[in-house]
């Protein structure tokens, strides 16, 4: 911490001059990049449409409230579908991610080459958003709940797999050595030494992902993959904002409930 003497008093500063210059340079470059990006966006924006944004918002809110309460009766089935998509998708992902994570973890992988294949699957699954997976799957299975389930599963494999293999790599070595010393074979070591250490965190990760998936499943319908998003898309296209309001309320309630549930369960497990 450099101290300079100015007029016989010691002045304390946190950084020396060179470091301060570097920090300033970083800030300037960062600001310049941001402004440059902003300029590009500003050029692609029609500002005359933005000028009346507050009127648009107030008109939007006025037409959204009161929401169309009667429409809720038609929404129970889509809501059930949304929960089904999230739950079955998560279960499917769990059943694939558990073996995959054992292949991907450095300490349990059967072969290094297989490990890289597993890591590649995890990375690709994670990089593609579930809505994009849904776009692909709708083309294959046709629009509907099935496409949604598969889309959620394909995205979640990478998420669950990554966190699970990291937790496998962090397992304590003592139980493994102890079980191996009893003459257990590979499978028994897996069953008695690894699984008891990994399963609680695996369950926690999966429930966490389930709660994210509920949120994701609410929009899959926008590309035709089932759930309440189908109704949202239709209502937006018809400019029935009172119905959109009703859908927003249901989504809000569903996500809040699932988040609370998942937080409770995770607290109980860990």
């Amino acid at each position: 911490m450099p101290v300079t003497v100015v007029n016989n008093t010691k002045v304390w500063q946190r950084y020396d001059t060179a470091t301060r210059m570097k920090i300033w340079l970083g800030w300037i470059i960062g600001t310049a990049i941001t402004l440059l990006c902003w300029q590009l966006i500003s050029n692609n924006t029609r500002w005359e449409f933005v000028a009346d944004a507050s009127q648009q918002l107030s008109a939007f809110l006025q037409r959204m409230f009161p929401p169309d309460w009667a429409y809720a009766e038609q929404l129970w089935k889509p809501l059930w579908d949304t929960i089904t998509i999230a739950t079955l998708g998560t279960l499917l992902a769990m059943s694939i991610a558990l073996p995959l994570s054992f292949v991907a973890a450095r300490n349990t992988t059967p072969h290094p080459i297989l490990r890289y294949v597993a890591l590649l699957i995890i990375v690709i699954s994670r990089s593609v958003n579930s809505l994009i997976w849904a776009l692909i799957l709708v083309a294959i299975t046709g629009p509907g709940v099935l496409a949604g389930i598969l889309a959620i599963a394909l995205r979640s494999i990478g998420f669950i797999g990554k966190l699970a293999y990291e937790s496998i790599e962090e397992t304590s070595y003592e139980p493994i050595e102890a079980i191996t010393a009893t003459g257990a074979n590979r499978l028994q070591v897996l069953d008695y030494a690894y699984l008891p250490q990994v399963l609680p965190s695996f369950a926690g990760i999966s429930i966490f992902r389930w709660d994210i998936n509920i949120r994701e499943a609410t929009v899959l319908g926008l590309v035709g993959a089932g759930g309440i998003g189908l109704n949202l898309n239709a209502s937006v296209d018809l400019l029935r904002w009172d119905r959109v309001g009703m859908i927003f309320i249901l989504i809000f309630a569903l996500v809040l409930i699932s988040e609370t549930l998942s937080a409770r369960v995770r607290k109980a497990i860990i």
Partner: protein
Amino acid sequence: MAELTASPVTSRRWRKPPLIRNPWLRWGLLIGALIYLAVAISSVPVDDARIARGLERGGRMISSFLRPDFASRWYDIQIGVLESLTMTVVSTVAGVLLSVPVGLGAARNLVSAPIYLACRSIITISRTFQEVVIAIVFVVMFGFGPLAGVCTLAFATIGFMAKLLAEDIEEIDPAPLEAIRATGAGWLKTVTYAVMPQVSARLVGLSVYRFDINLRESAIVGIVGAGGIGSTLQTTFNRYDYDVAAAILLIIIVLVMTTELVSGHIRRRLQ
């Protein structure tokens, strides 16, 4: 030795303790889950004929994924990708800047109850709705284009960052807080000298992480017209141009992987 082996070992065979200890809860959950599964699976319509036709299309899709077509729509792709990237930068910067005051306001140990509740409700709304849902609202407000996307991602960033920041602030060491307060510092000075130094490293780490997420999300908000590569991607799917779609997907995957590597590196160095 003979006495030891003769003792009834078999009757006291050790079993692994189950994951859920309470047997009523364990079996109840299992049976409930099975009933739910049966009902849920039976409620999923599966159209075999459609899937059979789709598999043929899936085969075509996979074969076109093996030869992605970057050239024929390169102009559209370039514009879309550039827009996604700029949206990510601007929305992350704006979102992080705005999330600091919201995060401070959502920390129980710093503010009064009304401010706390207001900031918490902003966080809850932002976190509850998926980005695309928020994008619909912003598109209504601002019209089609990247500005709606920037606002969407910035709003989602506020919820994410402010929540984690507030949790961090609530767990800070109270001693420096008290020391700075004892010097007679006001609220702003307390925050600058006692709170921010304790959380700033994590704030930077989280911002980098959120940059990753925003890049991923910027690829999809275009589906509802909020700019970025998403609208181009959806168009290619609607036109059955799977080789162009493959090119776009490959670009997205490479971009996401690169930023993830860089951000992982930065975050490790910060710790």
